[in-house]
């Protein structure tokens, strides 16, 4: 009954109630959205670098090398000679090495030449079909299959380069032979073929049929056939981590090494500054909302002194009146929290859509952190409590007689 009455009192002035709930939920919403996005980002990023100690590629920005070779959201830094790379891929310090050759893309999903170790490395399993064996056979990640509605046996032409609207390789058709189960890693949005196909499409097969400009074709044939883009390395032991980078730097000056863990941390800390700034803004909004709730309860309290005194004469104890006013603050908390949660998820979905369009990074399921939400709810209740406690104490000490006397 008291909570019902508190509810009636709060929504008796719908505009004030709406304003308070909007301010409150904005704060909660921003915090929820930020942590959802951050978690999803870190989740996505960290999952994909599991088991990769080092990435070897052409010189350039190390962050770019990681972003392109591991996440496929940046252009490659360039190519490296296969011969040079192989020297290190079979080095005794190396437990596993996954060679990557970039070339084409299809509907802006990157196509990647590698060997079977790539799929094994990312722990991907076949959902249907079989692994690619011959040239121009591809296995596609789950996102690719979903977005492009590709099925086993489907054929397509690829586009040169990573950008959409690039030059189409018309002569050669790729065939889908396998579809992978979702992994939550970058491989979900990759089309994997063997390396020979990547060399081939830029080499003689692709050329003889399609390339009208002979010179460029010749150029491709010569270089593409013995180059790869990057190698994902896993060390055999800690000793390798100490020794190998130095050895490679000394002996292969044109190779660049980048540690995914370091680069990803650097990326997070760069993003983190922005996220922290927004988070502090959200805390500020929450504080503002506490003040706004306090003011609106305090203001109505002045008008409602008679009502509260009347409730006391009708038999309400001091404690009942106190809990009525406290409940009003807590109702703001609960509604503000729920609306904020809704806003946060909505905002997260918008960011997810944006990320999907920009990076083809699909934010699969909601990374809902129940502990964090319990904490947020607790903070919400605390804010409502703090906003209402002073008016509530005031109502507790109402002098019924002097309030109601008219003499």
């Amino acid at each position, binding site marked *: *009954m008291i909570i019902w*009455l508190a509810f*009636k*009192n709060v*929504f*008796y002035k719908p505009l004030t109630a709406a304003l308070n709930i909007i301010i409150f939920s904005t704060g909660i919403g921003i915090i929820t959205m930020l942590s959802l996005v951050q978690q999803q980002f870190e989740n996505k990023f960290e999952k994909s670098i599991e088991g990769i100690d080092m990435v070897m590629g052409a010189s350039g920005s190390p962050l770019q090398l990681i972003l392109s070779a591991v996440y496929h959201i940046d252009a490659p830094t360039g190519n490296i000679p296969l011969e040079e790379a192989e020297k290190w891929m079979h080095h005794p310090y190396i437990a596993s090495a996954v060679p990557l050759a970039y070339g084409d893309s299809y509907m802006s999903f990157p196509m990647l030449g590698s060997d079977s170790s790539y799929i094994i490395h990312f722990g991907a399993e076949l959902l249907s079909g079989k692994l690619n064996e011959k040239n121009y056979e591809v296995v596609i990640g789950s996102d690719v299959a979903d977005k492009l509605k590709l099925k086993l046996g489907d054929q397509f032409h690829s586009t040169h380069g990573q950008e959409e609207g690039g030059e189409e390789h018309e002569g050669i058709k790729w065939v889908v032979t396998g579809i992978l189960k979702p992994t939550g890693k970058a491989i979900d949005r990759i089309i994997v073929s063997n390396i020979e196909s990547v060399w081939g499409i830029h080499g003689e097969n692709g050329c003889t049929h399609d390339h009208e400009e002979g010179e460029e074709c010749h150029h491709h044939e010569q270089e593409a056939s013995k180059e790869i883009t990057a190698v994902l390395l896993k060390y055999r032991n800690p000793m390798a981590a100490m020794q190998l980078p130095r050895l490679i730097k000394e002996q292969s000056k044109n190779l660049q090494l980048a540690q995914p863990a370091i680069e990803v941390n650097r990326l997070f800390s760069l993003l983190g500054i922005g996220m922290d700034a927004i988070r502090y803004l959200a805390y500020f909004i929450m504080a503002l909302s506490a003040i706004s709730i306090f003011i609106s309860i305090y203001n109505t309290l002045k008008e*409602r002194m*008679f*009502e509260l*005194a*009347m*409730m*006391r*004469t*009708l*038999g*309400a*104890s*001091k*404690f*009942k009146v106190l809990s009525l006013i406290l409940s009003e603050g807590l109702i703001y908390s609960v509604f503000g929290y729920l609306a904020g949660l809704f806003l946060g998820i909505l905002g997260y979905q918008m960011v997810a859509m944006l990320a999907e369009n920009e990076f083809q990074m699909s934010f699969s399921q909601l990374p809902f952190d129940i502990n964090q939400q319990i904490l947020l709810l607790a903070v919400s209740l605390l804010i409502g409590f703090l906003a209402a406690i002073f008016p509530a104490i005031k109502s507790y000490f109402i002098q*019924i*007689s002097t309030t*109601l*006397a*008219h*003499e």
Partner: protein
Amino acid sequence: MLSTHQLKFQYTPEVKFDFPDIQCALGDTLVISGESGSGKTTLLHILGGLIKPNQGSLRLNNTDIHLLEGAQLDKYRGKNISIIFQKMHFISSISVMENILLAQWLGTGLKDANAVNELLAKLNIADQGKKHINQLSQGQQQRAAIARALINRPSLILADEPTSSLDNKNAMIVEELLKESAKSLNAALVIVTHDMRMKKHSQNLIELV
């Protein structure tokens, strides 16, 4: 039976009241009148347990009200004493019906919508229950306040200037309504007023000086 013995109340050393002993049997009506500042309202608030007398005793049926404290007093008041103030002080965010249900719940811990509807019908405001108090006419508001006062079938009904803002006809009606209700509920009715009209037809009258 309501009875008081040597009630005294003091606001400041200069402003203090010595009240005459009063008695009012259940079903009877007592009118207390006096000039402004004579302590009418103070006496009413003491009778209602809203303030404590500095001295003296106050007994309703078998309960010494002046000995009750805190939540115990609140509970006793809610169940046994009803006060009708000059202003209604209805809760504006809920309907008249809900206000009376709230009074019922605060007094007895129960909610009985049928009883409320019956009472509203008896007071001729059955169709006003769903409205908020400020949508009712003055006379209807007075009836709603009476309904709220009667809903818990109290032993003591206190009324503070219930008729002073009403015209002759309505004042008459309200006065009769209160007296009849007190009789039918077997409650003691104490009316504090300076309304001359009411003094005229009261046998049981105390004048404060």
